[in-house]
């Protein structure tokens, strides 16, 4: 008979990713577990490393803006506007008030879209599929608005160097107000759900607690920091765009656990709806862009923006030509990731996906047609055609 050894010192390494059902982005995690309890955690990034910082060195500023927009499909506006703002600072010009207000409006619309997206994904991690489906359904409201004002659902391309490319018409303004009214109602409902649903609270209350001291040591940013009581929000600390005219109330919580991260984000949704309403109602009149020279004199600058996930920083250096010398970005996930791997230690393996999703990790951070060699379909489907296809398919089953 083989001997069953009770080797307590034996630990297992559980690799997760890069292809994994939980997160939609690639990252490779390794958890060393003793039984069910995590002892060590490590991450390998770089699955989404596309060498963007190198690419932008041989593009001009306008081209670089479109590349930076594709750093991340969830918070594309913050990256593109960071480059636009940086280039404006380097050239010594300022975007006109209306452009700054429109940028602010899109920041907040994007924050609503990103937080709702996160709420759904995090609920999915907790096995709360109904909340996933509801929040993603409501997210479509904001996607419709973004599409209406910019023409695209994901990469809005709102920015231009020296201002913005789009204007908010009176009709769009009405639609935006209608949408945020609806979303405010829904956000109140979600706040109620994440702070009172018993099953959900068992997965979030007291899990992954981070004290303010720990948070400061790891340099965490964004809602994760604010949920631990660290008062850090670039919109308040160093107002950019039009945040000096439309001030933000900082949302913080003191518990520092997953529940606090949920409530902080959902309360930020409410704050964002208030801001959107205020900006739309008080949109300053005037020009959309100022003229910026194509060649930008040699200088360097640092741009800080509060992305939905936290503080985003870009360092930019120009060299007197129309191409940047160096652009370096620091996305909010990097410091948060360092802290969160630390947090998983001592927790059950089953909690790890929730804790990871709790920081809203983003590893990467206008075409409408399908063209295929097929005769049977038109290149672009309308909503009705799509609906009809579903019905036909259902009836056509044999």
């Amino acid at each position, binding site marked *: 008979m083989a001997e069953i050894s009770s080797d307590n010192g034996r630990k297992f390494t559980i690799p997760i990713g890069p292809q994994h059902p939980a997160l939609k982005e690639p990252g490779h995690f390794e958890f060393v577990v003793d039984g069910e309890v995590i002892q060590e955690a490590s991450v390998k990034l*770089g699955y989404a*490393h596309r060498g963007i910082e*190198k690419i932008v060195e041989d593009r001009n500023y306008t081209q670089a803006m479109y590349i930076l927009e594709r750093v991340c499909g969830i918070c594309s506006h913050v990256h593109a506007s960071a480059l636009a703002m940086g280039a404006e600072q380097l050239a010594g010009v300022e975007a006109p008030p209306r452009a700054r207000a429109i940028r602010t409006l899109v920041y907040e619309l994007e924050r609503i879209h990103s937080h709702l997206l996160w709420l759904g994904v995090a609920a999915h991690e907790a096995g709360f599929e109904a909340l996933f489906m509801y929040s993603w359904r409501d997210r479509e409201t904001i996607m419709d608005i973004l599409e209406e004002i910019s023409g695209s659902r994901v990469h809005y391309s709102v920015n231009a160097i020296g201002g913005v490319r789009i204007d908010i018409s009176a009709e769009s303004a009405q639609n935006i107000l209608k949408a945020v009214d609806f979303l405010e109602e829904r956000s109140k409902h979600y706040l109620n759900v994440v702070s009172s649903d018993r099953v959900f609270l068992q997965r979030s209350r007291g899990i992954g607690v981070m004290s303010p001291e720990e948070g400061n040591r790891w*340099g965490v940013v964004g809602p994760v920091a604010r949920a631990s009581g660290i008062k850090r929000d670039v919109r308040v600390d*160093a*107002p950019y765009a039009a945040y000096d005219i439309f001030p933000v109330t900082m949302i913080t919580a003191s518990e520092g656990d997953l529940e606090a991260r949920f409530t902080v984000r959902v309360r930020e949704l409410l704050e964002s709806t208030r801001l959107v309403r205020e900006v739309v109602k008080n949109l300053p009149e005037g020009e959309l862009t100022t003229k910026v020279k194509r060649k930008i004199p040699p200088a360097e600058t640092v741009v800080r923006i509060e992305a939905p996930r936290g503080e985003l920083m870009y360092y930019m250096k120009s060299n007197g030509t129309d191409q940047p010398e*160096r652009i370096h970005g620091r996305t909010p996930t990097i410091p948060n990731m*360092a802290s969160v791997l630390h947090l998983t230690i001592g927790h059950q393996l089953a909690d790890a996906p929730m804790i990871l999703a709790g920081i809203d990790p983003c590893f990467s951070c206008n075409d409408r047609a399908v063209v295929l060699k097929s005769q049977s379909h038109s290149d672009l489907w309308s909503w009705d055609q799509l609906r009809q296809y579903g019905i036909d398919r259902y009836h056509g089953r044999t």
Partner: protein
Amino acid sequence: MPEDAKNTEETTEELVEETVALIPQVEAAREVLEPLSTSTTASGTKLLYVAVSLDQLNEATEAIVGSGLGYLISITPVDLGVEENQFEVLYHFGVGPGVVTIRITIPRDEPVIPSVCEQVPSATYYERELMEMFGIDVTDTPNRTRLYLPDQWPQGIYPMRKDYVPRSERQLPESKKDKV
């Protein structure tokens, strides 16, 4: 091109900057760093660049982080080019509404800097990036493995250096070769 020449002419005029007082938090950081710095430049009221010598780096970091004045946002390496033969490493600290940047300069052919992980534990990610992208050796940093570059990436090739020729190091699939 005549148009280009005109543009450069106009931009040189704009370079003249007036000196304005720094905001209080950044001013405080400037005072703390004064004894360590070799030169200080301000850009606007919120941005301050402080050059320090290599062996003063840890002290300068401690001066900002230890006193609770600010936190490390990021570390940016800049390749000044083959002719200059220098790397710049910039440590950005968020100080209230402003950003204080500590600048160190190291020779390109012997790029070695000390780690600041003692003072700021989360610096490890930025230091790993320095090592793999620029080949800057960060002594005594806790983790020396690669963070972003693929495992099969050859040793000794650093993609973010200015003299790196993209795609010189690996084979593309047959069907994609004509694109290079």
